[in-house]
């Protein structure tokens, strides 16, 4: 097809909606840097971008900026500062109360202080662990060689989400709509090779809203992996799946 015949399809192409054979034809013209189609499609892309600016203004949460910066490694410094800040705040509160009530010398009150301080330290430890976990997750998400697999896409329930596999960083599972496990049970993730037995990839619990994020750090052979699955198992974990997988995300070889 010549450029003249394709001109009415530039906008649809720009929106990812052109149909065959026009789509392939436009692509071919672009690949050979056609002097008519290239600027035509660019103008169509400009128009598409401008249509996007007509949407009602909406504001994301304030946390999103930090999340995005954290995902490229800029956040850990802030996280360390926030942890130090939390610890310093706890210490200041402790000192302030100590100075305000010097007569608080009896052991019971001191024990309360000690507990409060220990609680603050525990909060800081939990926060550090969560930061480390998120850093692992974002390292996988951020990897240019990370592969992505989707599960439960066509069904809104019971579980849906994505799995990200990075050959050097590990496997990240993000899920929603997970039902609460029965008492004494947890979710267990499995890396299922194309040939061979499933390999356990860690236990996790969903949040009360049914969401979950689980990371299995380490290397993973993506080419040899057929799927990522999740089953409900005893808290101690299982060597092999004992229940029907709640999640089964086939892993394809194509990049994300």
């Amino acid at each position: 097809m010549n450029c003249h015949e394709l001109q009415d399809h530039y906008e649809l192409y720009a929106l990812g909606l052109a149909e065959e054979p026009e789509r392939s034809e436009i692509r071919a013209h672009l690949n050979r840097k056609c002097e008519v189609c290239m600027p035509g499609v660019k103008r169509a892309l400009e128009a598409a971008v401008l249509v996007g600016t007509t949407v009602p203004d909406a504001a994301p949460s304030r946390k999103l900026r930090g999340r995005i910066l954290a995902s490229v490694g800029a956040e850990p410094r802030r996280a360390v500062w926030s942890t130090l800040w939390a610890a310093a705040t706890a210490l200041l509160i402790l000192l302030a109360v100590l100075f305000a009530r010097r007569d608080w010398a009896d052991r019971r009150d001191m024990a309360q202080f000690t507990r409060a301080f220990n609680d603050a330290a525990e909060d800081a430890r939990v926060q550090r662990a969560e930061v480390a976990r998120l850093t692992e997750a974002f390292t996988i998400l951020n990897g240019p060689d990370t592969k992505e697999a989707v599960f439960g896409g066509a069904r809104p329930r019971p579980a849906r989400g994505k799995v990200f596999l990075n050959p050097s960083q590990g496997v990240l599972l993000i899920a929603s709509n997970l039902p609460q496990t029965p008492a004494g049970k947890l979710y267990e993730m499995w890396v299922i090779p194309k040939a061979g037995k499933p390999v356990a990839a860690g236990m996790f619990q969903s949040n009360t809203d049914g969401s979950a994020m689980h990371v299995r750090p380490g290397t993973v052979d993506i080419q040899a992996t057929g799927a990522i699955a999740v089953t409900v198992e005893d808290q101690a974990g299982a060597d092999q799946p004992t229940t029907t997988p709640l999640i089964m995300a086939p892993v394809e070889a194509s990049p994300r």
Partner: protein
Amino acid sequence: MLLPLFLALRAISGDGDLIERLQKRDPQALAELYDRYGRQVFSIIFRVVRDSAIAEDLVQETFLRVWNRVQGLDAERGSVGAWLLTVARNRAIDYLRSTAGRERNSLDVEETTHPALFCDMEQGLLASDKTRRVKAAMEKLTANQRTAMQLAYFEGLSQTEMAERMGQPLGTVKTWVRTALKSLRDELGVAVTS
């Protein structure tokens, strides 16, 4: 009060320096990119997926995608804002398609986010008068034309899918889409030679 003016002036000043710093993996440049375009990116994605939590996840993916692929963008001639908004819209449509189990895969939208396509675009496009003109053009469309455009842009429906959704013959929908696109072209001053 001066903030919108400041942002507009900054957008008009171009993206060259910002692209160079992104290519040097400067996290502060990513922060600046977010401050400059984050709200627009979120607004577009939120309009498509209509769920703020999902929209925020997709905004994050969008910025990571641009961060990881910015080396392919021409620092002198590239338009990072237009590229970012295109990636955002496509990522959101891709999400809709995957959750709806629609056959069309991400390749359709991926090929329109190649950085080479975002060179030599109008500097300060997003702060230009064209945004107002496009809005005016959209408002002038008939209800059916506007619906068709919205289904195309914000739901990623093909013309066949639009016809099914709207319960109209395919030929009728194609006419609406063609007329609406021509209106936009005319409003933006793009010569129509066909």
